[in-house]
């Protein structure tokens, strides 16, 4: 009964004209940035974050969430037609999607990717509705030690799954924690690393840091590596609906991809990229014809596309029920909610049911919108793909500048953004990942509070983290992940490239 009353509330909020409009705007922008290589959902959400401060928190979150899962849909278009993934979660779609396009089957590849994403998105929304309430109830039993160890675990998982060196990822997490401490200490009121700058007294802004690390640096990187001329596969896109045979082959990969994606999305540190690689690897392993993968098999498109969409929606569970972001996009959304005065966590469902259920309801509507948007508008996305980068990049930079300035009408924040743009560019060049830095930066104040409260509770004894069952479990899992690369015979998880 509670399920249906929640469902009713979800749709009542999501179907208001304002929220419908922002949901549409979000998925439209999401698809657009998914299509455009070099501008991913992280950069776009950070670019648009300041403009959401003028609207209600529920509309803001609906729009930002729409950008995230919309990008997953859009990313497949470039993977299939151009062999360039619009965003990282669609890398694996290139393998079979582009081969299908070369064989004149771009239509069914795009079609199954859109339908697979829709089915996965729909199943994920239902799963969120079933899983989130009991999880939030359980989280009500969490105290500061449990929260601290959970955040520690989230950071550890993210560094463990880092695509490059784990040491480098841990370095970036340490740097992120330090950057999060800049500003006025909330407990003692003392200024830390501000050097009497008014801008720094409130701490480093989330928007300038993210826009710099992901927006400006991406442009600099694209300019530095002159993009190869895009070879858009000119094929007639009239037959977008997969035939009966395509459906027969794809339906189980779609369901398996949805399941894998959803659970990898929930995992702190997991996400759409890992989910898409994982789903592809599973399909290849259980297939009777694994040798055909990479030559244009439709299940090689259906499974990862379903998985990345399911993961992008599953990632909302830890954010909305525990207040813990599972990946960098969720970290930005956490920042957005905090700026709007809403604290995500177990009490969100009780204190702001409109935000919680409104976002969930909007995801379902967003999935329908995306299905309608993607199939007939593919021709338009292909045209947009042809916009030359030298015309596009000044506009992206302008967007960063306006977004950053409009936050506090402060040019110092623009300079901070540019500075982080340079740092982000160098980090990418020398293979230091930005995701652990941002997650640690967002979690740093929350972790510091939880740590200090825990130590005050235990009169200075660290045993509080080892005597409470939930806290010690989180801590032991984190510790295992940290030392596991050193255990002989226990190798770090295979990289995306290895799976494929």
């Amino acid at each position: 009964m509670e399920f249906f009353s929640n469902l009713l509330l979800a749709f009542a909020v999501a179907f208001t004209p304002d929220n419908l409009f922002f949901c549409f705007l979000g998925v439209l922008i999401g698809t657009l940035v998914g299509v455009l290589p070099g501008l991913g959902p992280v950069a776009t959400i950070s670019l648009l974050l300041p403009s959401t401060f003028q609207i209600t928190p529920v509309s803001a979150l609906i729009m930002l969430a729409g950008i995230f899962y919309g990008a997953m849909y859009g990313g497949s278009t470039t993977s299939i037609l151009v062999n360039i993934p619009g965003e990282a979660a669609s890398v694996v779609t290139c393998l079979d999607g582009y081969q299908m396009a070369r064989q004149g089957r771009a239509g069914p590849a795009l079609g199954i990717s859109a339908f697979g994403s829709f089915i996965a998105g729909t199943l994920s929304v239902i799963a969120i509705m079933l899983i989130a309430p009991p999880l939030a109830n359980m989280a009500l039993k969490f105290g500061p030690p449990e929260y601290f160890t959970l955040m520690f675990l989230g950071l550890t998982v993210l560094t463990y799954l880092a695509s490059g060196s784990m040491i480098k990822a841990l370095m970036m997490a340490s740097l992120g924690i330090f950057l999060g401490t800049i500003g006025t200490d909330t407990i003692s009121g003392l200024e830390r690393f501000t050097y009497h700058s008014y801008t720094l007294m409130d701490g480093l802004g989330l928007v300038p840091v993210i826009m710099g690390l992901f927006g400006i640096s991406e442009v600099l990187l694209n300019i530095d590596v002159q993009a190869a001329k895009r070879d858009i596969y000119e094929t007639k896109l009239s037959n977008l609906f997969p035939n009966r045979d395509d459906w027969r082959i794809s339906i189980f990969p779609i369901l398996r991809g949805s399941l894998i994606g959803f659970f990898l999305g929930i995992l702190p540190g997991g996400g759409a990229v890992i989910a898409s690689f994982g789903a592809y690897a599973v399909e290849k392993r259980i297939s009777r014809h694994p040798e055909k993968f990479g030559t244009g098999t439709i299940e090689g498109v259906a499974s990862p596309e379903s998985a990345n969409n399911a993961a992008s929606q599953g990632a909302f569970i830890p954010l909305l029920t525990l207040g813990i972001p599972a990946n960098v996009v969720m970290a930005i959304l956490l920042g957005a909610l905090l700026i709007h005065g809403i604290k995500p966590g177990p009490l969100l469902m009780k204190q702001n049911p409109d935000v919680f259920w409104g976002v969930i309801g909007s995801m379902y509507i967003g999935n329908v919108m995306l299905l309608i948007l993607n199939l007939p508008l593919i021709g338009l996305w292909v045209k947009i793909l042809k916009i030359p980068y030298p015309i596009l990049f000044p506009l992206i930079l302008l967007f960063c500048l306006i977004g950053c300035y409009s936050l506090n009408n402060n040019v110092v924040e623009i300079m901070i953004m540019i500075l982080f743009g340079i740092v982000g560019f160098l980090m990418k060049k020398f293979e230091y990942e930005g995701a652990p830095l941002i997650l640690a930066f967002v979690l740093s104040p929350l972790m510091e509070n939880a740590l200090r409260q825990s130590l005050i509770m235990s009169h200075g004894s660290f045993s509080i983290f080892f005597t409470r069952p939930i806290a010690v479990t989180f801590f032991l899992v984190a510790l295992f992940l940290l030392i596991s690369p050193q255990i002989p015979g226990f190798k770090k998880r295979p990289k995306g490239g290895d799976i494929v």
Partner: protein
Amino acid sequence: MKKYDQITSLVWLAFAVYVLIESSCLPLGSWRDPGAGFLPLGSGLCLGILSMVNYLQARFRKEDDVRGSWHSPDRWKSLLVILAVLFGYSLFLDFLGFLVSTFIFLFLLFRLVEPQKWAVAVGGSFLASIVSYMVFEIWLKTQLPRGIFGF
């Protein structure tokens, strides 16, 4: 990458030392009641130790993938131009106002990085400035700087 890993590790180590020195000037408190310097000191310590581990790993790494320069020599100037234009924009935005500085900013990027035709550069800059002004100032009610010209 080996050489670059060693150099960047030393840069991070130097930064960690700075964090340690600065945070030791803040009250560290006690285990019962950690002070404002507790977490910065801890994060600086972690960064420093990890930098040293990274340096040593790179130092004793046998194999090394051979890579060229870490930047593209012919694109280097473009990056400097973009950064100079970006810093210039942040310096002159309040003085010149949004419309004028945005027009100049876009025009310079269109012309200096990968030169577009004059018509594209002037027309594109003008159109993008006006559209962004209308969207942000008029529609979203963002307060953009007016500068000496009053717009």
